[in-house]
């Protein structure tokens, strides 16, 4: 280590109690509004992110209930076509962009630094910025919807329907700009996670000792970084077409309508895996904990994660099988879509093997994992079916597909997520969620989900297209539709119970110990909830399950300064310590930067000049953000 200057304080000089006090004074967020607005603590931001995402989940759920109300009977007139189109567009957009992706990243913001044994996420201020931007994007969309200018073009906003001629008003612009908000925040978080995982792992945590959840988030972050630019290009081109008068998607002037679909789905298919892969990590973690043994086939799991991620970039045309492309080219995508079932199979088999060999404990998180396996396997089966061109030309854009992707997304992501919330809730809040209520929640959601979505397969096969606001009485669809609408109530009650349980437990649940489940990964090595500095001394890792190897106290590294926020940077493959690195102190500037960006982006819906004039406040905010403050963290 480098020469120690006079006046610097190191953790080697203190005993545990003094060290905790010292670290707390340097890392904790000051109380009050100002502290809340300027914090860069990954745990506070992560909790905020998770809460916000769940609020959007609840709102999206309400929208789906409205849709079910309208579809419960033929030619119903509860909701007109205009509002209905807004509602299903909002439901899809909200669930994909404001719930599914952010909530997975939010879990990572909270958990990844703890799981790799570091004190804060990389680029903490960018992290704060990304939350504010995400919140602003969500508010933009919802405020627009409340004002009856919500987008009405479907969540994939096909041109020309979303283009200047057929989508009058500002609705499509708001949709496209909301994409910009969420993409900026998602990209920022992805970069933070990649850097955190690659450079901030605890000493000794080489690539083959990373917990599987961290692996899954690392792979997901790469997916985000590679896939999101496609949608940013697409939405920017759309906005330019609409507001500036370019002709990217105008066939009369040499533009191409299919270009949008290619760009959108080049993002849109990896998007599914952006949502699914973190869930794979959550399932692996929960399975390992509740079967009392590490997940079988670590190598196979990592391989499956990476293979799935790469393959997901070669599936996008299977959303376009009916667009009139050559069948031979489409069949290449059939081949890839089929091939991705192999890594998915590897994962399923590895979990089953783990459960087979372990001694399962049937607590609520594990129940959700079982539900996940059942539902995801059904979703996977229908996935193999729709990957086939001849079959897809019949069921494309019908309720069969609606059923399929709800099975994959709700089964493949929401179930593991709910399990993960039950699992990590003690870590997040310091309190346990209710076990009996948890079983009710699982039962209701599992039953409600299957009763709601399984009949949709049949509806699709009977020819009911998706996105219709009503249907005629002579169609053979009304019986199943009323059944689905009633089942949706069961599902909604299940979610309501979950929210009640979560809010009640956060206030008055039984207090949790540091490691209530007997888990083996590093986040359980600290108290629940963790102190602002996560670990008083950074742990040293020698295997995949450090907490089992050292049931008492973990071996720790020392030598970090306690008079500034400091963490350890380690090498990529072996995780050998390389340097001590300062971590940013709290700052209000990310909020100002986010506000300036928000103002610019919303203003630009109304005039392109906003981009010019809006860059001034953004520049001011960024200068303030990066200006050296003369605090210890600014030392190199």
């Amino acid at each position, binding site marked *: 280590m480098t020469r120690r200057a006079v006046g610097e304080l190191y953790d080697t000089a203190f005993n545990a109690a003094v060290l905790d006090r010292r670290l707390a004074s340097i890392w904790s967020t000051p109380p009050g509004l100002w502290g809340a607005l300027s914090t860069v603590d990954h745990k506070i931001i992560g909790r905020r992110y998770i809460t916000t995402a769940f609020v959007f989940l609840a709102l999206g759920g309400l929208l789906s209930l409205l849709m079910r109300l309208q579809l419960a009977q033929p030619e119903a007139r509860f909701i007109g076509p205009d509002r209905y189109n807004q509602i299903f567009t909002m439901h899809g957009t909200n669930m994909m962009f404001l719930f599914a992706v952010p909530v997975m990243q939010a879990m990572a913001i909270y958990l990844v630094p703890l799981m790799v044994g570091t004190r804060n996420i990389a680029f903490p201020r960018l992290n704060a910025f990304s939350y504010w931007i995400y919140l602003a994007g969500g508010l933009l969309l919802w405020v627009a919807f409340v004002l009856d200018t919500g987008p009405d073009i479907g969540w994939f906003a096909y041109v020309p*329907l979303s283009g200047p001629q057929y989508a009058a008003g500002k609705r499509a612009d708001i949709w496209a700009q909301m994409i910009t908000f969420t993409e900026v925040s998602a990209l920022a978080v992805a970069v933070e996670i990649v850097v955190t995982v690659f450079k901030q792992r605890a000493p000794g945590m080489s690539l083959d000792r990373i917990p599987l959840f961290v692996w899954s988030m690392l792979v997901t972050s790469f997916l985000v970084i590679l896939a999101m630019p496609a949608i940013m290009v697409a939405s920017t081109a759309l906005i330019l077409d609409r507001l500036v008068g370019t002709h990217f998607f105008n*066939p009369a002037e040499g533009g191409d309508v*299919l270009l949008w679909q290619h760009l959108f789905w080049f993002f849109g298919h990896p998007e599914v895996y952006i949502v699914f892969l973190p869930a794979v990590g959550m399932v692996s973690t929960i399975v390992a904990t509740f079967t009392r043994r590490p997940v079988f086939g670590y190598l196979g799991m990592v391989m499956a994660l990476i293979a799935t991620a790469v393959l997901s970039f070669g599936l996008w045309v299977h959303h376009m099988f009916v667009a009139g492309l050559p069948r031979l080219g489409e069949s290449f995508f*059939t081949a890839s879509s*089929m091939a991705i*079932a192999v890594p998915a*199979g590897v994962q*399923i088999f590895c979990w089953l093997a783990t459960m*087979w060999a372990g001694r399962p404990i049937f607590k609520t998180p594990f129940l959700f994992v079982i539900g996940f396996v059942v539902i995801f396997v059904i979703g996977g089966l229908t996935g*193999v079916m729709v990957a086939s061109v001849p079959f897809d030309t019949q069921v494309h854009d019908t309720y069969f597909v609606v059923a399929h992707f709800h099975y994959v997304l709700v089964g493949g992501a929401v179930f593991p997520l709910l399990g993960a919330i039950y699992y990590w809730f003690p870590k997040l809040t310091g309190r346990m969620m209710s076990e009996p209520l948890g079983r009710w929640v699982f039962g209701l959601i599992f039953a409600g989900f299957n009763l709601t979505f399984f009949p949709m397969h049949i509806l699709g096969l009977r020819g009911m297209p998706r996105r219709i606001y009503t249907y005629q009485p002579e169609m053979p669809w009304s019986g199943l539709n009323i059944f689905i609408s009633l089942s949706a109530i069961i599902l909604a009650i299940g979610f309501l119970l979950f929210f009640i349980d979560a809010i009640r437990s956060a206030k008055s649940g039984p207090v949790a110990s540091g490691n209530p489940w007997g888990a083996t990964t590093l986040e359980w090595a600290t108290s629940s909830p963790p102190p602002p500095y996560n670990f008083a001394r950074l742990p040293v890792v020698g295997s995949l399950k450090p907490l089992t190897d050292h049931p008492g106290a973990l071996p720790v590294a020392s030598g970090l300064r306690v008079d500034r926020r400091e963490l350890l940077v380690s090498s990529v493959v072996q995780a050998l310590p390389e340097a001590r690195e300062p971590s940013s102190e709290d700052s209000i500037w990310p909020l100002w930067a986010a506000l300036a960006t928000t103002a610019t982006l919303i203003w630009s819906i109304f005039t392109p000049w906003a981009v010019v004039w809006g860059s001034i406040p953004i520049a001011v905010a960024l200068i303030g953000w990066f200006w050296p403050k003369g605090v210890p963290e600014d030392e190199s």
Partner: protein
Amino acid sequence: MVVLGLALLRRRRPAAEDANSEERLTTAVSAAVAATVVIIAGLTIASFYTTRSIGVPKSAALTITVRGQQWWWQVFYAGSGATSGFQTANEIHIPVRTDVQIRLEGADVIHSFWVPSLAGKQDLIPGRSSSLLLRAEKPGVYRGQCAEFCGLQHSHMAILVIAEAPADYERWAASQREDAMVPADMDAAAGQVAFLAKPCAACHTVRGTAANGTSGPDLTHISARQTIGAGLLETTRGSLAAWIADPQTLKPGNNMPMVPLTSVELQNISAYMESLK
């Protein structure tokens, strides 16, 4: 893949085996993965064979052009040599046991042509053309619907495919080629006058009269079609009158404006429409 389900059910057996079963697990998982690979490969090949068998042949006996409009289907039957072509809407007649090629064009936004009982779906994309093969083995009425979300009235965009014996088809086609009937009674004659004087004629064509608008469906033989408003209502005089009086309540957002008419004009125009067999 069904093996997965079985494995899942068996999973709940209390497994109290020792750590030395690791190798057997490896074998089992590898075998399962290998089985998945084989099954997936088999399914894929089967899918390719099916794809091959549903291709469009080089020549079809009859070619019909369908243009998707917001929110109705414009249909062109091409003429050949001596016979002239004609236009209709929301209803296709085809002879049975004949390959019919449907050429698909998008006029405004993307629609998707889908008659579930006859063939898979195919998108109608502005700036591109695609085609689809229809073949009906049995006479009958096959309902189809737009499958790609196309705006406000995506829900009400149905098309009927009527398959009939070749002789019946020829008779139908011959009658469609005729110009519109000259109104026989007083009401219909007055209706024709009103139709031509009011803006109706700006959007609709009635062959044989001065009405030659192109933005709405061709009405030359409207009464011979089973439905109006793209499968919205059965074609009766009452439904025609209801539609003309207030199209925006029946199909909110559609492109037909409400035209102010007196009750007598409305009555006459619907009588005229009904006479256009």
